[in-house]
């Protein structure tokens, strides 16, 4: 595996509360998630799965309509359930972006997809084929 190249900035914020919703665009495909986590390792040196959390007044609808506007489906977790699954939430990049992290790739993917969640249709979906 290639050597990690970049240091990831952390915001230094407290963990989201246990009931805070954590969103990831699209259905949960373990192979795609694995690819994303490996790519994150390749660039930043840790296995991470990108998500967005309801923090700092940012709501589910805010995230769905902006960050995830091109996602027809959204996987919805709570921060508490992810932590209870033995995963870490790192406040990477700019709020409300987070990485779900575990030192072992297989554990990260397995624990993430096995964490209680629901899949909802994105009511703010904007088709990439349309002008808006």
């Amino acid at each position, binding site marked *: 595996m290639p050597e990690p*190249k*970049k240091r*990831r*900035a952390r915001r230094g914020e407290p963990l989201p509360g246990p009931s805070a919703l954590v969103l*990831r*665009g*699209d*259905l949960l495909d373990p192979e*795609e998630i694995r*690819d*994303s986590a490996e*790519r*994150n390792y*390749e*660039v930043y040196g840790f296995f991470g*799965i*990108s*998500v*967005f959390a309801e923090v700092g007044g940012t709501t589910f609808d805010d995230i769905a309509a902006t*960050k*995830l*506007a*091109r*996602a*027809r*489906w959204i996987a919805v977790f709570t921060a508490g359930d992810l932590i209870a699954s033995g995963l870490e939430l790192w406040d*990477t*990049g*700019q709020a409300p*972006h987070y990485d779900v992290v575990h030192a072992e790739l297989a554990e990260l993917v397995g624990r993430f997809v096995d964490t209680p969640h629901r899949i909802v249709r994105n009511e703010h979906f*904007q088709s*990439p*084929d*349309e*002008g*808006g």
Partner: protein
Amino acid sequence: MDIELDADLNAEDDEGLNWSVLSAAAHPEVIKAGAVVTAGRDRYWSWVKVVRVDPDGQVHFEQISAAEAQEARKLANAS
């Protein structure tokens, strides 16, 4: 839709831009600053504009609308 740059559109860099890597491009030679391509995966993709490509191959981009993509490609073809 043919995806020109495989990417996880959830992923953001430290500036809040989406990112992928050059090795994930179908045709890496077209991935340059200002290029307009499709990025993402089958169910979750967008037209995007490449902001920059780092020396290590990390590609930073922003999502744009289909109308913006059409306009950008029209301008590129005219020049």
